[in-house]
C-alpha cells in the first residue's frame, strides 16, 4: 500500500471516531461523557467479536454507541432524581472497562444472543423491528398483518426469554 493511501485510511478512522463522539454528545449533551461512551463501545465491540462475528462493523458500532449513550443518559437522569438507585443497583456500571467487566459483558452477550436465536423466527423479526429498527408496535402489526396485541406479546416474550436466560446463567 502506498503511503498516502495509508494516511487516507487513517484519516477516515479519525473522521469516523469524531462522528461517533458527536452522535453520543448529541444524546448526552456532554462531550467528555460522549468520549467515554465511545471508548466503552470500542471495548465492547472487540469483546463482541469473540462471541459472534460482526459482518457490518460500521453500522454496528453506530448502534452500540447510540444504545450505550441512550442508556447512560436515562440512567443519569434517574440517578439525579432517585439518588439511592446508584448505591444499591448491584451492578457497578462505572467500572465498565475492567477485564472483569468485559468478561461479564461477553458472557451476558452470548447468553442474550443465544436466547434471541432460540426465538421463533417471527418473534425475533418483530423484536428486531421494534428494538433495532425503531418501528412502532402499530407499524409492525400492519407490516406483518397481525394484531397489535400479538406484536406486544411477542416483544414481551422476547424480553422474558432473555431475562430467563440471564437469570439461569448467573
Amino acid at each position, binding site marked *: 500500500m502506498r503511503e498516502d493511501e495509508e494516511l487516507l485510511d487513517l484519516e477516515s478512522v479519525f473522521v469516523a471516531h469524531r462522528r461517533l463522539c458527536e452522535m453520543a454528545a448529541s444524546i448526552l449533551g456532554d462531550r467528555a461523557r460522549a468520549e467515554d461512551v465511545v471508548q466503552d463501545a470500542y471495548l465492547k465491540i472487540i469483546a463482541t467479536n469473540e462471541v459472534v462475528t*460482526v459482518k457490518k462493523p460500521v453500522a454496528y458500532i453506530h448502534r452500540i454507541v447510540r444504545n*450505550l449513550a441512550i442508556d447512560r443518559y436515562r440512567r443519569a437522569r434517574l440517578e439525579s432524581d*432517585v439518588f439511592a438507585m446508584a448505591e444499591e443497583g448491584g451492578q457497578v456500571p462505572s467500572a465498565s472497562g475492567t477485564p472483569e467487566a468485559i468478561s461479564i459483558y461477553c458472557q451476558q452477550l452470548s447468553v442474550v444472543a443465544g436466547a434471541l436465536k432460540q426465538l421463533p423466527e417471527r418473534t425475533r423479526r418483530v423484536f428486531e423491528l421494534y*428494538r433495532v429498527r425503531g418501528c412502532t408496535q402499530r407499524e409492525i402489526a400492519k407490516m406483518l398483518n397481525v394484531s397489535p396485541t400479538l406484536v406486544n406479546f411477542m416483544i414481551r416474550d422476547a424480553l422474558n426469554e432473555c431475562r430467563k436466560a440471564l437469570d439461569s446463567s448467573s
Partner: protein
Amino acid sequence: MTEFARDDALWNTALDWVMREHEEPLDDKTHTALCCWLAEAPEHRQAYEQARTVWLMTGLVPTVDEQTETSSGDD
C-alpha cells in the same frame, strides 16, 4: 399474591417503563411518575435495573443480518 406472581408483576411494570421510554422520550410528568414508582420500594428499583439491563443487552447483540453465521445449527 405469591412471591413469584409479585415478582412477575413488578418485572412487567418495569418492562412497561422501559418500552415506554423507548417509544418516546418521557415528558417531565411521566418522568416524575417513574421516579415515584422507583422511590416506592427497593424491589421496584431492582426490577427496573434488571429490565434496563436486559433491554440494553438486546440492543447490543448484532442483528440477524449484522452477524456472520459461524456455525450452522445449535449445539
